[in-house]
C-alpha cells in the first residue's frame, strides 16, 4: 500500500467509497448483533441497579436514619455496591458492547466464534451479580475499587480471558491493511486491563504485600482502571464516532499518535497522587505528581484533534444525539483531566484530599466523560445492529437534558462543597494554634451540599429511566419495514 493512501485511510474511518463501505458494514453489524444487544442490555440493567444504590447512598449522607436499621443497606456497603455495579456492571458491559463493535467495523470483518465472547460475557455478569450481592451481604474486601469478595476473582478473571482472547482474534481477522487510532486504544486497553487486575488481586487480596505497598498497588490499579481502561475505550470511541457521524476525517493523524503515546506513558504513573501526604515514600509521590502534570500533553492534544474535527459543524452535530453526547464527553475529558492534574499538586491536594471534591472529580471522570460518550455510542450503535430506529426522539432529548444538566450540577455542587470542607478542615487559628473549626461544624456545613447532590441525582435518574424505556421499547418493536431508515435527529430546541 502506498504511503498517501495509507495515511488518508488511517486518518479516516470514512475514506472508502460509500456503497462498498455500507454493504460491508451492514454485514459486520449483522454479525455483531447478538453481542452488541446482549452487552447493552446487561449494561443497562446494571446502570439502573447502580442508580438505585447511588440514590440510597446519597440520601443516607444527609438523612442518616433512612434504612438505618438494615445491615444489608448500611451506608458503607451500599456505597461500594454502587461503585462496583457502575464500574464492573455498567462501564465494563457497555465497553464490551461498543468497543468490539467499533473494532469489528474498523477491521471490516464478519466476526466469528461469537459464542466465546458471549460465554465470557455471561460469566462476567454472573461474577458481578455474586460480587455485588457479596458486598451487601458482608463479604466485601476493604480495598477501594476491589470490594468484590475474593471468591469472585476466578470468575471474573476467567470471563475476561475469554473476552480478551476473542477481541485479539477479532483483530487478527481484519480485512484491512491500516490500523485506525481507535483500534490502538482498544487493543491497548484490552491488554492493560488483565495485567492491572491480576497484579492487584494477587498483591492485595490473595497474597497481600507488606503494609502500605498494598495501598500503592491499590491506587496504581484503581486509577489505571480509569486511565488505561475506561479512558482509552471512551477516547477510542470518540475518535470513531465524531468523524463518522459528521462525515469528515479526523483533523490530524500525527496528533492522535502523540496523544496515544503520551497517555500510555504518563497515565499509568499518576494514580499515587491519592496518597499525597500519606505514609509512603516521597519519591513515589513526586513521580506520580510529575506524571499527573504531564497528562496535560495527551489531553490537550486529543482536545485539539476533536475540536478541530467538529469545528464549523456545530449545527449538524447538535441535531445528532450521538454527537451531543460524545462531544459533551470529549469536552469533559479535557476539563476533568486538567482539573486532575491540578489536584495532584501538593498545595491543591492539601485542600481537596479527603473531601467531597474527590467525589466530584470521580463523577466528572466516569460520568461526564466516559458514560456520556458511551450513551452517544449506544445511540449510534443500536439502530445499526437492530436495523430499526429509536422509537422516541422526545425520550432521547429528555435523557440528554437531565443527564447533562444533572451531572454538571452534581459535579459543581460537590466541588464547591468539598472545597469549602477542605478549607475549613485545614484552617488553623493562628492565636491558639488549634483548628479554627470544630470537626462537627465542618461536617454540618456539608449537609446542604449533600441534599443538593441528591436532587441532582434524582434528575439523572429521570434521564436513566427515559433511556431504559427507549431501549426496551426499541427492542420490543418489530424490525424495520424500510420506511424508517432515516436516523433519529433532534430538533435544535429539543
Amino acid at each position: 500500500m502506498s504511503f498517501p493512501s495509507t495515511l488518508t485511510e488511517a486518518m479516516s474511518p470514512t475514506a472508502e467509497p460509500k456503497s462498498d463501505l455500507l454493504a460491508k458494514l451492514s454485514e459486520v453489524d449483522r454479525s455483531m448483533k447478538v453481542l452488541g444487544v446482549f452487552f447493552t442490555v446487561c449494561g443497562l440493567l446494571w446502570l439502573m441497579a447502580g442508580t438505585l444504590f447511588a440514590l440510597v447512598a446519597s440520601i443516607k449522607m444527609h438523612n442518616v436514619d433512612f434504612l438505618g436499621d438494615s445491615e444489608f443497606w448500611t451506608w458503607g456497603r451500599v456505597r461500594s455496591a454502587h461503585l462496583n455495579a457502575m464500574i464492573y456492571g455498567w462501564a465494563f458491559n457497555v465497553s464490551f458492547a461498543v468497543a468490539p463493535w467499533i473494532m469489528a467495523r474498523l477491521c471490516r470483518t464478519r466476526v466469528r466464534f461469537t459464542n466465546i465472547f458471549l460465554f465470557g460475557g455471561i460469566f462476567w455478569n454472573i461474577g458481578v451479580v455474586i460480587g455485588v450481592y457479596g458486598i451487601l451481604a458482608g463479604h466485601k474486601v476493604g480495598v477501594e475499587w476491589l470490594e468484590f469478595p475474593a471468591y469472585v476473582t476466578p470468575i471474573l478473571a476467567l470471563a475476561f480471558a475469554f473476552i480478551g482472547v476473542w477481541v485479539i482474534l477479532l483483530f487478527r481477522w481484519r480485512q484491512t491493511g491500516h490500523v485506525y487510532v481507535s483500534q490502538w486504544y482498544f487493543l491497548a486497553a484490552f491488554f492493560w486491563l488483565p495485567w492491572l487486575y491480576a497484579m492487584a488481586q494477587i498483591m492485595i487480596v490473595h497474597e497481600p504485600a507488606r503494609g502500605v505497598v498494598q495501598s500503592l498497588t491499590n491506587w496504581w490499579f484503581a486509577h489505571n482502571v480509569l486511565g488505561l481502561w475506561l479512558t482509552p475505550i471512551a477516547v477510542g470511541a470518540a475518535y470513531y464516532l465524531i468523524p463518522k457521524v459528521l462525515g469528515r476525517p479526523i483533523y490530524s493523524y500525527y496528533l492522535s499518535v502523540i496523544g496515544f503515546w503520551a497517555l500510555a506513558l504518563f497515565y499509568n504513573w499518576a494514580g499515587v497522587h491519592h496518597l499525597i501526604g500519606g505514609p509512603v515514600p516521597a519519591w513515589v509521590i513526586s513521580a506520580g505528581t510529575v506524571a499527573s502534570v504531564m497528562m496535560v500533553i495527551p489531553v490537550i492534544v486529543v482536545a485539539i484533534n476533536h475540536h478541530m474535527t467538529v469545528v464549523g459543524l456545530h449545527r449538524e452535530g447538535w441535531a445528532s444525539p450521538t454527537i451531543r453526547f460524545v462531544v459533551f464527553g470529549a469536552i469533559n475529558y479535557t476539563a476533568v483531566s486538567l482539573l486532575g492534574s491540578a489536584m495532584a499538586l501538593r498545595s491543591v491536594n492539601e485542600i481537596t484530599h479527603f473531601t467531597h471534591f474527590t467525589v466530584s472529580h470521580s463523577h466528572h471522570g466516569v460520568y461526564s466523560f466516559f458514560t456520556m460518550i458511551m450513551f452517544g455510542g449506544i445511540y449510534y450503535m443500536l439502530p445499526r445492529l437492530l436495523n430499526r430506529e429509536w422509537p422516541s426522539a422526545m425520550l432521547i432529548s429528555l435523557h440528554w437534558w437531565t443527564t447533562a444538566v444533572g451531572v454538571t450540577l452534581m459535579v459543581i455542587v460537590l466541588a464547591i462543597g468539598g472545597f469549602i470542607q477542605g478549607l475549613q478542615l485545614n484552617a488553623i487559628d493562628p492565636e491558639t494554634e488549634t483548628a479554627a473549626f470544630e470537626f462537627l461544624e465542618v461536617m454540618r456545613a456539608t449537609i446542604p451540599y449533600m441534599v443538593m447532590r441528591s436532587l441532582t441525582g434524582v434528575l439523572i435518574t429521570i434521564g436513566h429511566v427515559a433511556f431504559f424505556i427507549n431501549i426496551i421499547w426499541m427492542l420490543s418493536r418489530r424490525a424495520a419495514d424500510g420506511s424508517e431508515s432515516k436516523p433519529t435527529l433532534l430538533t435544535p430546541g429539543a
Partner: protein
Amino acid sequence: MRSLPLLFLGVFFTIASSWVGIVLVSNIQLGGLEPATPELTDAEGNPIAGVFFEDPETGEMRLGLNQDGVEAWPVPLVGAAQRGKRVYEQMGCLYCHSQQVRRQGFGSDYERGWGERQSVARDYIHQERVMLGTMRTGPDLSNVGLRYSELWQHQHLFNPKITSRDSLMPRYAFLYEVRPISETRGPSPNAIEIPEDYHPGPGELEVIPTQRARDLVAYLMNLRQDYDLPEMRREQ
C-alpha cells in the same frame, strides 16, 4: 500506525514501567520493614540517629539494629481486636474515616489532635489489610484508641447522636441486642448505659453488645500510633 509489533512493545513497556516503578520498587524498599525499637544501634550497640549507620570497616550504609531488651513496635493485633478489624472492613467504616496522620504543617491533622506524629510505613507492616482511607467525612482514627472509653465507643456505635449532636455517621444499632430485662436475674452486667432520650425502652429493655460490637470496640481501642519509631528521630 503500521508497525504493530511496535505498538505491542510500547503498550507492554509503558505499563511494565509503572508496575516496576510504583509497585515493585516500593515493595523492595518497604517489603522488608520490621518492628523497631525507638532508637536503633550500630553493630557495636551504640545508639544512632535515624535508621542507617555507616559500617566502619566497609564504609557501606547498613540498617540499624534493634536495642536489646527494649520493646519493638508496632505489635500485631490479636484476638478480639483482630476480629474487630474484619467488622470495620465489612461495615465500610473506611469510606468515611482515614487511618493516616499527615505531618504537622500539612493540613490540620496535628492541630486537631489526631496524632502527635506523622504516620510512617512501618506503622502498617503487620496489617494484612491496610485501610489508609481517602475520605474524611468523619475524623481520622489512627489514634482513636487514645481518645475515648469503651463505653463512649459503644454508645457512639449504637447511635452516634448520643455522643455527637447531628452526627452524619450511620448508627450500627444492629450490632446490639435489645432485649427485655430479665425479671428473675435483673439487669445484665454486660448491658451498656444509654441516656434516656435515646434508650429504646428505659426500665424495661436493655442494650447488650453482640460479639461483633465487642470485637469492633476492641479494635477501635487498639488504634494508636503513640509509640516512637527510629525514623521520627530524623524527620522531625
